[in-house]
C-alpha cells in the first residue's frame, strides 16, 4: 500500500515536471526542470527494484547530459526569442493534431495487441540459472555473458559519437 502511494506521488512529480519542461518559456528553467524530472525518475527506478539503473540515471543524465545542455544553452545566445512568429498558433494546432494522432495510434496498438503476461515460471528459471544474486550483480552478469557483443558495440557507438561531436563543434579542422 505504501509502495502504491509512493509510486503515485513519484508519477505525479514526474509528469508535472515533464509538463513544465515542455511548456516553460525560459530555456534555462526548462533544463533545470529536466534535472528534477530525471531525479524523480531515478527514485522511481529505486522503487521498481533497480538501484543500479537509478545510479546510472543520476550519473549519466542528471550529471552528464544536462550539463551538456546547459553549456549549449550558454553558448547559444537566446536573446532573440525563437518563439516569435507571425502566426504562432498555426504550428501549435498542427503539433497538437499530430500528437493526438500518435496517441490514437498508441491506443489502437494497446487495444488490438491484448498482450498476454509471460509465464513467470520461465523467468524465475532463467534467474535461477544465474550464479549471482543482487541487482547490480545480475545486470553485470547479463551484460558480460549474454549481451557481451551489444555491450562492445555500444562502447564503439559512444567512441564514434565522442569523435563526431568534437569534429562538429570544432571551429575549423
Amino acid at each position, binding site marked *: 500500500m505504501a509502495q502504491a502511494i509512493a509510486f503515485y506521488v513519484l508519477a505525479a512529480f514526474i509528469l508535472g515536471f515533464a509538463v513544465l*519542461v*515542455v511548456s516553460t518559456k525560459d530555456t534555462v528553467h526548462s533544463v533545470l526542470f529536466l534535472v528534477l524530472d530525471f531525479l524523480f525518475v531515478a527514485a522511481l527506478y529505486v522503487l521498481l527494484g533497480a538501484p543500479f539503473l537509478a545510479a546510472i540515471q543520476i550519473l549519466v543524465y542528471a550529471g552528464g547530459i544536462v550539463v551538456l*545542455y546547459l553549456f549549449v544553452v550558454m553558448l547559444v545566445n537566446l536573446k532573440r526569442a525563437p518563439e516569435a512568429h507571425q502566426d504562432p498558433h498555426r504550428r501549435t494546432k498542427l503539433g497538437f493534431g499530430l500528437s493526438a494522432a500518435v496517441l490514437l495510434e498508441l491506443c489502437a496498438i494497446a487495444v488490438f495487441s491484448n498482450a498476454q503476461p509471460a509465464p513467470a515460471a520461465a523467468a524465475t528459471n532463467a534467474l535461477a540459472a544465474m550464479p549471482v544474486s543482487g541487482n547490480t550483480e545480475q545486470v553485470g552478469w547479463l551484460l558480460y555473458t549474454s549481451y557481451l557483443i551489444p555491450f562492445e558495440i555500444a562502447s564503439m557507438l559512444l567512441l564514434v559519437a565522442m569523435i*563526431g561531436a568534437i569534429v562538429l563543434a570544432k571551429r575549423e579542422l
Partner: protein
Amino acid sequence: MMLSAALFMIGVIGVMVRKNIIIIFMSIELILNAVNINLVAFSNQLHNAIGQVFAVFVIAVAAAEAAVGLGIILAFYRNKETVNIDEMNLMKW
C-alpha cells in the same frame, strides 16, 4: 505503463509544438526516459533483469545522441545565428 505512456505523449507534444530546437532535444530525452520506465517496470514485474540491461543500452544511445545532436546545434548556430527550426531550411529544395 500509464505513467510511461503519459510521459511519452508529453515528449511527443514537445517535439511537435515547440520551435526551440534545444527544447525539442529535451523532449526526445523525455521520450527515451519513458521507454526506460517501461523497460524497468516490465523487468520488475517479470522478475527478469534483461529489461534493465536494455535500459542501460538505451541510456548509452541517448548519451551519444545528445552529444552529436548538440554538436550539430552548435555548428548550425555558428553558421546561421538561430535556434528556431522555422528558419532551418538549408536542406529545402
